[in-house]
C-alpha cells in the first residue's frame, strides 16, 4: 500500500510539473495539490479495486486516478485566484482568439455577426452560458464544472450540441 502511494505521489508531482506552464501554481499550494491528489487517488483505487479487469497493467489503471484527481483539483484552484471581469465587449476578442487578423476584418465581420446571432437565437440559455464562459471568457472547462456544480461530461455534451447547432446555422448562411 505504501509503495503504491509512493508511486502515486511521484506521478502526481511529475504531472503537475508537466502542466506547470498552464496551471501557474507553485510553492506550498503545489505541494498540497500533489499530495491531496495522490491521497484521494489511493482512496478511489481502493474503493474501486473490484472494477480492475486486467485490461491494462495495474499501474496504468491506477495512475489514471491521479491524473483525473489533478484535473479536478486544478479546476477548483482556478477560482482561488482573482480573475478580473473582462473589459469591454467579450465578442470583440473572439476574432483574435480564432486567428482572424484585423487586416482581414472585411472578410469575417459579417460571419462573426451571424455567429453572435446564432448564439443568441439558436442556443438554449444553458448552452449560451457554457459557450460564453468557455469561448468568450476562456474559463477552463474543469473550472466551469466546479462553478456550475456539474461534471465534465455534461458540460462537454452541452458544448458539443452548441457547436453543432452553431455550425449548422453558419452553414445555412454559407459561412462554413
Amino acid at each position, binding site marked *: 500500500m505504501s509503495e503504491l502511494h509512493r508511486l502515486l505521489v511521484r*506521478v502526481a508531482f*511529475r*504531472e503537475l510539473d*508537466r*502542466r506547470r506552464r*498552464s496551471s501557474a501554481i507553485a510553492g506550498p499550494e503545489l505541494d498540497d495539490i500533489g499530495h491531496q491528489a495522490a491521497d484521494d487517488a489511493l482512496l478511489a483505487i481502493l474503493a474501486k479495486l473490484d472494477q480492475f479487469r486486467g*485490461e*491494462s*497493467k495495474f*499501474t*496504468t*489503471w491506477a*495512475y*489514471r486516478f*491521479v*491524473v*483525473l484527481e*489533478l*484535473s479536478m483539483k486544478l479546476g477548483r484552484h482556478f477560482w482561488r485566484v482573482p480573475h478580473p471581469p473582462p473589459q469591454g465587449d467579450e465578442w470583440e476578442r473572439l476574432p483574435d482568439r*480564432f*486567428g*482572424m487578423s484585423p487586416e*482581414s476584418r472585411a*472578410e*469575417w465581420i459579417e*460571419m462573426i455577426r451571424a*455567429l453572435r446571432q446564432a448564439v443568441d437565437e439558436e442556443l438554449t440559455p444553458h448552452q449560451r452560458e457554457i459557450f460564453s464562459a468557455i469561448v468568450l471568457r476562456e474559463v*477552463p*472547462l*474543469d473550472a466551469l464544472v466546479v462553478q456550475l456544480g456539474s*461534471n*465534465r*461530461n455534461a458540460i*462537454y*455534451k452541452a458544448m*458539443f450540441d452548441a*457547436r*453543432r447547432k*452553431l*455550425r449548422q446555422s*453558419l452553414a445555412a448562411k454559407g*459561412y*462554413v
Partner: protein
Amino acid sequence: MTSWPKLESFLQTDPRDVGCEQALAVLHIYVELVLAGEDPELRLPGVTAHLSACGPCNEDFEGLLAAVRA
C-alpha cells in the same frame, strides 16, 4: 476552405465522439494501445474522436501517457 479555419475546426463535431465519461473510462486501455505501437483508432474510434476535440480529456491522456512512459 474558409478564412477562419480555426473557428471552423472548433465548430466541427464528430458523431463518433463518445464524450468524456466513456473516453476516460477506457483511457488506461487507450494509452497501452498507443504504447504498444497499435493504432487505437481501430479499436476505439469514438475515443480518438473525443480526444481530438476535448482539450481537458486530451490533457489527461497526455498526462497518463507521460506517467506510464516515465
